[in-house]
């Protein structure tokens, strides 16, 4: 006698499984890559094969091998372990800078959209002026004035990218402000703060979820650019941009020192972009 067993899957879990089943391969691969780097950032020792700061002068400039999977640098440090160690700082800068820029953008964008009138004009002009200054230049000035460190890199990149987000948030808020359901809520006599909180903000933020994901990758690239120019964290920290900067002097004779950190930045930023793009498509109902 057989007994049939009915398994009930909760709705959110079901949605997640459905998402996983229907996720395209490129997105799955990107998620796996992000997961790998996040694990490296949270618990680098789990994945590292060597001490990333340990100098071994007898193993200088070794090409990739079984012992050193991605080769060694001039001081004999294991490049694979250094790239993983650098993931923590790069990710922290990416997330921190994006969080900062989103926070600044949210306050200014919402204030501009909701206030209208003179304040809106002033804030919009400020966005325009800041937008006219290249992000890297703005970040360069900031780091030059306040000195290089993880915190200044976060602030520099965060402030540098904030005008773009602020403009986007303002536009979203304005478009939603004039929609029928907001007008309906007003007609029903809901207080304006409640309308903003319940209707405008959630609908304005949804498209930004994807932008934030992409923005993290972009912020990592900006931060790496700063470090590449020698304005990042001090040695021997293996932040990805700093690794690229150190490797460029050996690009002809020890390709791995430049290619590997470059690939790490590219692959991680690309993965975030792919996932962000996928999220955007889903939220816009394209898939």
């Amino acid at each position, binding site marked *: 006698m057989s007994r049939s067993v009915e398994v009930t899957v909760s709705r959110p879990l079901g949605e997640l499984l459905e998402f996983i089943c229907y996720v395209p391969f490129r997105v799955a691969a990107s998620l796996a890559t992000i997961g790998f780097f996040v694990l490296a950032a949270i618990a680098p020792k789990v994945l590292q094969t060597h001490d990333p700061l*340990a100098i071994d002068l007898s193993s200088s400039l070794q090409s990739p091998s079984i012992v050193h999977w991605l080769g060694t640098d001039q001081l004999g440090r294991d490049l694979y372990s250094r790239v993983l160690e650098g993931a923590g700082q790069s990710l922290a800068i990416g997330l921190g800078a994006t969080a900062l820029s989103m926070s600044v953008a949210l306050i200014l964008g919402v204030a501009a959209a909701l206030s209208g009138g003179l304040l809106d004009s002033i804030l919009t002009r400020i966005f325009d002026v800041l937008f006219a200054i290249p992000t890297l230049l703005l970040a360069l000035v900031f780091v030059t004035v306040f000195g290089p460190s993880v915190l200044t890199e976060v602030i520099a990149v965060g402030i540098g990218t904030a005008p773009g987000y602020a403009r986007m948030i303002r536009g979203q808020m304005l478009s939603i402000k004039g929609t029928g359901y907001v007008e309906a809520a007003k007609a029903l006599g809901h207080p304006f703060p409640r309308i903003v909180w319940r209707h405008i903000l959630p609908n304005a933020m949804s498209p930004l979820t994807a932008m934030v994901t992409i923005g993290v990758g972009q912020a990592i690239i900006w931060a790496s650019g700063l470090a590449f120019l020698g304005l990042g964290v001090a040695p021997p920290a293996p932040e990805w941009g700093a690794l690229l900067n150190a490797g460029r002097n050996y690009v002809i004779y020890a390709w791995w020192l430049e290619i590997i950190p470059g690939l790490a930045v590219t692959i991680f930023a690309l993965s975030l972009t792919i996932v962000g793009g996928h999220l955007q498509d889903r939220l816009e109902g394209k898939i």
Partner: protein
Amino acid sequence: MLSPTARPTRRFTGRSNHLARKMAATLAVLSGLSQWTPSVHAQEGVAVKRGGVIRYGHFQEPACLFGGWVQQWYLQRQYSDNLVARSDDGKIAPWLAESWTISDDKKVYTFEIKPNVKFTDGTALDAQAIADNINGWLSNNPDLRNPTAAPYLSDSFELAKAIAPQRLQVTLKVPFEPLLNVFAQSSQGILSPTALKRGLAVNCEKPVGSGPFIVDKWRHGREVTFRRNPDYNSAPAIAKHQGPAYVDGISWKFLPDQTVRYGSLITGETDAIYDIPAVAWKDANSRFAVLRHITGGTPLRLALYAARPPFDDVLVRKAFAYSTDRKAAVDTSFLGSLPFEGNGALSQSSPEYLHELGQAYAYDIRKANQLLDQAGWTERDRNGVRVKNGNSLTVRISYSNAFLKPDGEQALQVIQQQARAAGFDVRLQPTNPADFFAGRNLGPDDYEIVLLYWVAPGAEIFRISWKPDQNGEPNRFNPSRFQDSALWEVIQRAEQDFSSAERKGLYQQAERKIVDEAPVIGFTVLDVTLATSPSLKDVWLDHGSVGEPVFYDAHFDERK
């Protein structure tokens, strides 16, 4: 350095004797200078190809085309002439001065100036023009003051004046034997007094000298172009030929990235490059003509701030030196292309260099630990960093790539790790050149160690580095802040001693004391390297000065 033949052997007191002595001394100098008649150019007898523009890739771009930084000297060497030159073996040779005499009391130098020389703006280069330059160097006029000459000469210089159209007299308050060495450095190139009246800003952009090339245009961030001075008639006696330069000009490109710079030579986009990267050293030697000069003066060294803890204690300074295997760090980081220098006081190309100090403070971690224990740094925190009275043994190293090649930063990371084993918490403070020159990370509380050099032909550099603060005015060229009156006394005695052997002995006495007190620790030699394409001939480095590249004698071979 005075030519040995120029030194009067007797002291005359009577007026007639005085004149006779001067004539004898002049004749002696002139006879001795016969060795300085222009040497036969290697290419003479064979037609030297004229024309072409040398495309030269350089490392750093200064803010002005003349000044106190050696990068400015390199440029100035192309467009200005000096009063005297210094040969490879340290002898002073004629340049704008055809001959000179020195008074018995060693305070009055009289120079006979080469006739018919003009600056490239048409101003006559006579004794008055040179006097105007020298007086300006030592004046308080910011447009004229010379940041290299002033610290050397401000204590001894009294006046320069033209006592005849072609006769210059320089009077000192006290004897200063290295005077001619100072005059021979490119930073003391003579500039047109007419042009100098335009002000510093204009002169920085387009200085006017009497040299073999004329500054044509400075495209900031890209290049300085020089064109040949067709009327050049004032080459130094150490040059390989006389008359105008062979090439039409120089395109002095600024290529700060070493890979790009070396790559430009490989691809033929440049004819010569400065500062061969360590990683390309072997390759460059197999493919190109390589020139190298190890500069005199100080090596590239670690200056330890000795005026406050922890390095106010000589035991801690020595402990830091012993705790770091600087030789291994330099050998590895520079891939064997750059020699280690353990003598922090003086560079190995200086005549007064003591070889036995070249390996001073060789790596000895046991000794480092003993010294730190002895100094009272006996406790350690959980990270292994030594602690004394609640203060950690933290050492911040300030440096800039204005002074340190990229490979040098790797060497500092080795030092950072090695010193940790002895209980030092070493933190690196990289600073970009603009900030570094603006004084960032160089304030009294900003660093414990700073990495610096100062080039000079020899031990006269001690005056710059170790002159004690005067009347509350700090000596800004002494980043270790180490002040020792006994050391200063020895240095001054050496400067006033015109006997070669005794002066050398005094300088070496000072050298030993500096190394023994360890306010500076040796790191690497500072070298000038040039790689030139096979088609470019007769480029040379001015070994007698500080290794400035000289393109005056250069020419392309017939095949190009």
